[in-house]
């Protein structure tokens, strides 16, 4: 939160970061924070110039119309719960359990004041204010990043480049992109503020700044996270190393994303990429994932249709929705695994006939040949006092970093058979190399026993299946791996 300003140099290098390199340049439209980047395929320079100019004119008309629509919509949304924008806001506030909110006007005003006075506000007071805003239905919508997202969605409808899923646009006429364009256009990126849409016939590379500063190069390194197939999907990217998401107050550099639950900027927060069918959804989900602990956030995102998300915490640990890796280019997908049939883990937590039964604390992880944990599969049990009873796990990992517990833990679960699939990636999203590893499942139950089952295995192109059995707190445990033909 309070690091010395170190700017991701890639941002400074400007255009072309999220979309493939273009033959035509980026041009700024006469609207604050809007930029458009286009590239064309196999047409001569004269045609290219003509098409670019036409597109620019098209957009300019569109913008003028949109300004009027937007002004009307925002003022309606503030007053009328029936307005489309209002309804979307409330829907997401509810769905995110108040991790996302469009109604933080009073809080934003406090932070505006703090930026001017260079003094941090009182934290307890802000918490109280956040609670009041949450409980009061009459609190109106206030400007935020989500405005950009909404405008962008309208734009895309106008250009006829993709579905936005919104209600029909209130315009007299809908200028459509000339047929000529749609054949010649190779890629288009439209950016409004921090929201963007890419449309491309080739794959689109999406990168994040690694949250680790490289002392030698004096820069934040880039993680290349995904190559999206050509899509008109909306992308929302919140990169914690991105200076446009920070504010400076006194000697402190804080996030601009305010946590609606306590009114304070998100601290030690992860970077997030979300893709969805429309920009409003993408930004609502992204802001929610900045605020929720990663494992819980991803579990929530997994429940949303049409959404894929990647969360990278401040240590570089990667958490992805189950559909995320579909977007990755095939040859980079699973390292030496030829297809994506994963590593399958099954385990049983047996019933115990005791009077006061407490569901057990549980850790599942994979360690490398030096016994270092490389992948945390599950951590069940929220109270770090009881997680200490998982003695091996605690010694190897738990005691090192309390932030890990909050990031990855979930609630304890009842006796049953459980099934997990692992995609062969370590905590940092990298496919593991061939070699020797060990799987551990460790259980501790209040007034019960502690039990550990460890199964060594070798990752190679050879399939295998191994079984083991616990004595009291664990039943059958089995691993199976089938890398394919």
């Amino acid at each position, binding site marked *: 939160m309070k690091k010395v300003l170190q700017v991701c140099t890639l941002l400074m290098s400007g255009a072309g970061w999220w979309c493939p390199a273009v033959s035509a340049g980026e041009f700024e439209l006469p609207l604050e924070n809007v930029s458009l980047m286009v590239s064309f395929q196999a047409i001569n320079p004269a045609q290219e110039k003509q098409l670019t100019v036409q597109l620019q004119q098209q957009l300019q008309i569109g913008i003028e119309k949109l300004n009027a629509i937007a002004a009307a919509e925002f003022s309606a949304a503030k007053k009328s719960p029936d307005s489309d924008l209002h309804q979307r806001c409330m829907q997401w506030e509810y769905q995110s359990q108040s991790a996302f909110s469009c109604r933080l006007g009073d809080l934003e005003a406090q932070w505006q004041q703090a930026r001017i006075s260079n003094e941090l506000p009182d*934290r307890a007071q802000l918490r109280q204010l956040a609670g009041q805003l949450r409980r009061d239905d009459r609190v109106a919508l206030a400007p935020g990043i989500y405005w950009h997202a909404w405008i962008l969605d309208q734009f895309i409808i106008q250009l006829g480049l993709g579905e936005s899923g919104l209600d029909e646009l209130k315009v007299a006429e809908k200028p459509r992109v000339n047929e000529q364009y749609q054949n010649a256009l190779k890629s288009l990126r439209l950016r409004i503020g921090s929201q963007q849409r890419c449309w491309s016939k080739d794959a689109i590379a999406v990168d994040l700044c690694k949250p680790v500063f490289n002392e030698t190069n004096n820069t934040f390194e880039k993680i290349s996270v995904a190559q999206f197939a050509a899509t008109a999907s909306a992308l929302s990217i919140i990169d914690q190393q991105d200076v446009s998401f920070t504010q400076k107050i006194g000697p402190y550099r804080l996030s601009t994303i305010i946590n609606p639950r306590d009114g304070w900027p998100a601290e030690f927060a992860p970077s997030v990429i979300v893709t969805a069918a429309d920009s409003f959804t993408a930004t609502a989900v992204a802001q929610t994932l900045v605020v929720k602990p990663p494992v819980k956030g991803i579990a929530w995102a997994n429940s949303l249709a049409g959404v894929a998300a990647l969360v990278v915490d401040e240590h570089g640990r990667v958490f992805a929705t189950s559909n995320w890796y579909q977007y990755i280019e095939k040859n980079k997908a699973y390292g030496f695994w030829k297809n994506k049939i994963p590593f399958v883990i099954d385990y049983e937590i047996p019933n115990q006939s005791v009077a006061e039964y407490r569901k057990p604390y549980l850790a599942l992880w994979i360690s490398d040949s030096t016994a270092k944990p490389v992948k945390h599969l599950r951590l069940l049990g929220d109270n770090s006092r009881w997680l200490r009873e998982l003695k091996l796990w605690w010694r190897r990992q738990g005691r090192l970093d309390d932030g890990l517990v909050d990031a990855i833990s979930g609630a304890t679960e009842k006796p049953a058979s459980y099934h997990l699939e692992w995609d062969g990636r370590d905590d940092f999203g990298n496919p593991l190399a061939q070699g020797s590893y060990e799987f551990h499942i460790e259980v501790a139950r209040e007034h019960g026993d502690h039990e550990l089952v460890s199964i060594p295995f070798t990752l190679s192109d050879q399939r295998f299946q191994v079984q083991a059995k616990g004595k009291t707190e664990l039943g059958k445990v089995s691993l199976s791996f089938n890398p394919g033909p």
Partner: protein
Amino acid sequence: MKNNFYLGASSALVLMALSGCNTAPQQKIAEANAKPTSSFQRDHGDGFADRYWFIDEYDQNGDGELSRKEFDDARASRLTGMDLNKDQRIDENEYVEEYALRLEKQLSEERKGQISQTAIRFDSVDTDKNKKMTWAEYEASGSRAFTHLDKAGRGVIDTNTPVPEMRTAQNENEKPRPRSALSMPSSHSVSGFIAIYDKNGDGQVTRAEFDQDRKNSFNATDANKDSWISAEEYLLEFENRLDRQAKNVRAGQIKQAHVRFGALDKDKNDDLTLQEFGVSGERIFSGWDLDKDGTVTAKDPLPKREHKQEKATAAK
């Protein structure tokens, strides 16, 4: 504010000594203050410090004693205060929110205290008083901390290292140190030292491991890389650690508050009634009022709780 209590406290300590208690008061305080805890621990604790803060929390007239009526009134008033939307119900969110707000105030207070200590710590390490903490000064300070614990000169701090005596004995007339919600680990205790410096998780800190860690810390704290640490850099680094700890504490304690609501709301209707809250209050008060005279004072015997927590010791 609590004059009567001070007298009461010292007489209680005399009583304990006469009755031949095995644990001397100072050591009990050391144990009590070594354990991190929450306000839940205050209500259900067992040390004389816990009781002091329990009385302090609910004592309306400031006489250092807590009558049943004072306690019940304070609790009823707190419950009413929780009803934020004034719909005559206390649901889980309101209960947790009330707790979260109290916790936030406590964290803010502790943070201020920790920060004022930081300036003093900086000055004590900056031995030549030129406002620049050099590697030599930083290294010397670390060395002192290591050898203070490693009196036997074994070159390692581990579970065999003896627990050091309290640096300052608790004056029996002083207000006990308050429970810390932040509970930053301190390098003055063996367990704290290991918690801070044992990076490879092998349960011990060798001199080499320690020296390397200190070098890394120094470099990380020297944010502008001018090979010395300014007071501001030192403070910023410490505040970063404080805020990280506070974030974890908040998350953990708020989860516990949800669990507590579940336990209090016996009929599971997502409404905490005065009666349900009263049942819990009864248990808390009678857990302290062991002489059953309707008042919790320093004269009550200290309770023996069946703690589910293990005692904090250096050995593990």
